């Protein structure tokens, strides 16, 4: 059922409510701040990372270089016999281990099948086969080497120094002795230093980020304030305050936008003002015309009776003409009255003179007054005892127009129902006619709307339902038109009690 068409006053002024300030999860502000922070983070991060890298490498290189050269020096001072005696070698290793630089180290030696160390374990598990292979490489001149190894989370520096001897004090060449000495040093302190640097970098970067938040928020604010102003202004315009303008200063893109907005608003205001004055002129004209028509009509209407009475004594053509004039004068008077009424609504000059009345009485009197008392034509179902605040004259117009409309366009019997629904007075006028064409339904309350274009004039003025609608609105109620499922049209008026 297409009931809500032809909606009445209730939905009339649809006010745009202020748009709620939706929190934008990825709004402009968030994005600006994030961008700022990202730039700051990248900056801080890059600097910190590069600094950290350089410092870490410096720390490690220094430790390594110190250890390697110190170790080689220590090994250089060894006196050995060949074959190497494990006992004296162990003594030497213990001495070297004590003199480790920058820290004591553990020293291991491999000679043939002999394994000797400064610790209680003859061989170390952190010395990799690669380092061993490198140190024991066959060749005239083996090289020392070192390797950083991480085992169980502890970083170690492992150094391998092969021992060579000179075959002759002055002109001898260096020959490998087959002895390789290893030193193992924990890099705990270096790691602690490096970690301290990471901590320092983080501790430096986080406050920097926090500090970056301040300009980020300020910048976002600077950008967003005009945007917010613009939104408020646009919304205010939307609510009809066309004189809204934005304070546009500066020369950036946003102030350009603000200026454009102001120009558009001014243009809009101008054209709306023109439209309004044109509409007002048109309405005033309609009002003036009906006003001016009323005085001659008053004279004419007063004499129609004379015409009617005397028509019988005239020759038939003249009599018909005279009767025609009389009848049309009456219709013209009704039309002019309706036009006057409508223009008063348009000018908001219509006043509501409410009185507390018995609603059923009110409807009954309307029907009586119009002589709609034949139960075959109009069937009233009126709930008794409802007292309502109404303008009896306007309510009479509403009921009379609806019933008259039903009798004209629908089919008898017309049922008038009156009942209270909560604190709403419901007046329902239904007929047994064919109903209203769904295409026509949305327009039934339009002025001079003719359902049947071929029929140029109906009996009414064509303003009856429009006046009904305005009267109901004046009461703060609604009127709807619909087709009943069982056939026939139904008009429902709802007014506050």
């Amino acid at each position, binding site marked *: 059922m297409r009931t809500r068409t032809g909606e009445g006053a209730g939905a009339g002024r649809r006010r745009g409510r202020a748009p709620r300030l939706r929190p934008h999860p990825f709004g402009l502000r968030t994005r600006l701040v994030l961008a700022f922070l*990202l730039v700051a983070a*990248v900056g801080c*991060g*890059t600097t910190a*990372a590069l600094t950290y*890298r350089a410092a*870490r490498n410096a720390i*490690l290189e220094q430790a*390594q270089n110190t250890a390697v050269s110190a170790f*080689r020096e220590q*090994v*250089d001072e*060894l*006196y*050995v*016999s*060949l*074959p*190497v005696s*494990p006992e004296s070698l162990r003594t030497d290793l213990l001495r070297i281990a004590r003199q480790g630089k920058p820290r004591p180290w553990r020293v291991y030696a491999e*000679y*043939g*099948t*002999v394994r000797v160390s400064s610790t209680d374990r003859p061989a170390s598990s952190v010395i*990799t086969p*690669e*380092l061993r292979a*490198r140190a024991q490489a*066959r*060749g*005239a001149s*083996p*090289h*020392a*080497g*070192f*390797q*950083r*190894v*991480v085992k169980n989370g502890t970083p170690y520096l492992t150094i391998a*120094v092969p*021992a*060579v*001897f*000179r*075959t*002759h*004090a*002055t*002109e001898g*060449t*260096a020959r*490998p*002795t*087959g*002895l390789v*000495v290893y030193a193992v040093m924990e890099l705990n302190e270096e*790691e602690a230093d*490096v*970690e301290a640097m990471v901590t320092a970098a983080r501790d430096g970067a986080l406050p920097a980020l926090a500090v970056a938040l301040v300009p980020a928020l300020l910048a976002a604010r600077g950008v967003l304030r005009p945007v917010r102003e613009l939104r408020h202004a646009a919304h205010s315009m939307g609510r009809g305050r066309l004189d809204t303008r934005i304070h546009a200063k500066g020369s950036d893109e946003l102030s350009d936008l603000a200026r454009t907005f102001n120009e558009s608003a001014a243009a809009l205001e101008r054209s709306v003002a023109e439209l309004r004055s044109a509409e007002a002129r048109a309405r005033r004209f309609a009002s003036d015309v009906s006003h001016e028509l009323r005085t001659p009509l008053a004279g004419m209407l007063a004499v129609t009776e004379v015409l009617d009475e005397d028509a019988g004594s005239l020759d038939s053509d003249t009599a018909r003409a005279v009767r025609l004039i009389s009848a049309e004068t009456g219709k013209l008077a009704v039309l002019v009255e309706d036009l006057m009424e409508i223009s008063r609504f348009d000018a908001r000059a219509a006043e509501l003179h409410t009185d507390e009345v018995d609603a059923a009485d009110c409807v009954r009197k309307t029907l009586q007054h119009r002589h709609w008392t034949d139960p075959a034509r109009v069937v009233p179902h009126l709930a008794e005892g409802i007292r309502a605040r109404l303008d009896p004259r306007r309510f009479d117009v509403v009921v009379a127009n609806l019933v008259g409309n039903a009798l004209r366009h629908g089919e008898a019997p017309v049922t008038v129902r009156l009942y209270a629904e909560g604190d709403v007075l419901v007046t329902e006028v239904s007929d047994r006619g064919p109903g209203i064409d769904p295409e026509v339904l949305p327009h039934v309350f339009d002025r001079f709307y003719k359902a049947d274009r071929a029929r140029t004039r109906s009996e009414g003025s064509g303003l009856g339902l429009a006046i009904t609608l305005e009267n109901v609105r004046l009461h703060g109620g609604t009127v709807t038109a619909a087709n009943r499922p069982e056939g026939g049209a139904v008009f429902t008026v709802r007014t506050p009690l």
Partner: protein
Amino acid sequence: MRRRTGAAPLSLLSLLSLLALAGCGIQETDVVEAGGAATVVVQPVPEERMTLYFLGPGGGTMPMARDVGPHAPSPFPSRTRPADGAGDDRMPYEGFGPGYEVSTGTPVHGRVPTDKVLAALLAGPTDEERATGATTALPGAGGWTPRVEPDPAGTGRAGTDPAGSVPALRLRTPFPVRDLPEAAVRQLVCTAAHAEHPAGRSEVTLTGPDGSLPAARCDD
């Protein structure tokens, strides 16, 4: 829109790669070469020792220095001390500096003759040396003494060369040389070269009953 979706991951990516580049903590490394080997002092001094090149457990040379100084217990296996016992002659010995003398009865008259050194090499490592893992690849010679002679092929550059040119010598072995393992050849060459010349730069040609090997030097 495109730019927004493009920029954020890009900057994130660069940030991440930077972090990765920087790494955290201490990383492992490969083996890094750090200068030459350490030079140790081998006792006894070169003049009072002879150096025999045996093989270590890894196959590399494992030189052994045997004391041939005045107080040395008997550096040679047997019958290396001359039986004639010219015993108590003394002669000046520069090894300890001027003013020192050593007995002419000891083998240390400058150096131990090369054939004696080679004999010691062929006799194999001592028990003490063997205990450290030293081995030899040479076949036993059963009291054989190799003959050492100047190499005729190397005559042109042989002899005492003040310019430091290479002396050449030939070793005549009683066993065939062509099938000798490379390590055995190296033992012979190095031991002979160092016995012949302090810097071990002599060129050595091995000649066995089955022919000669090309001249070689102890350079590995």
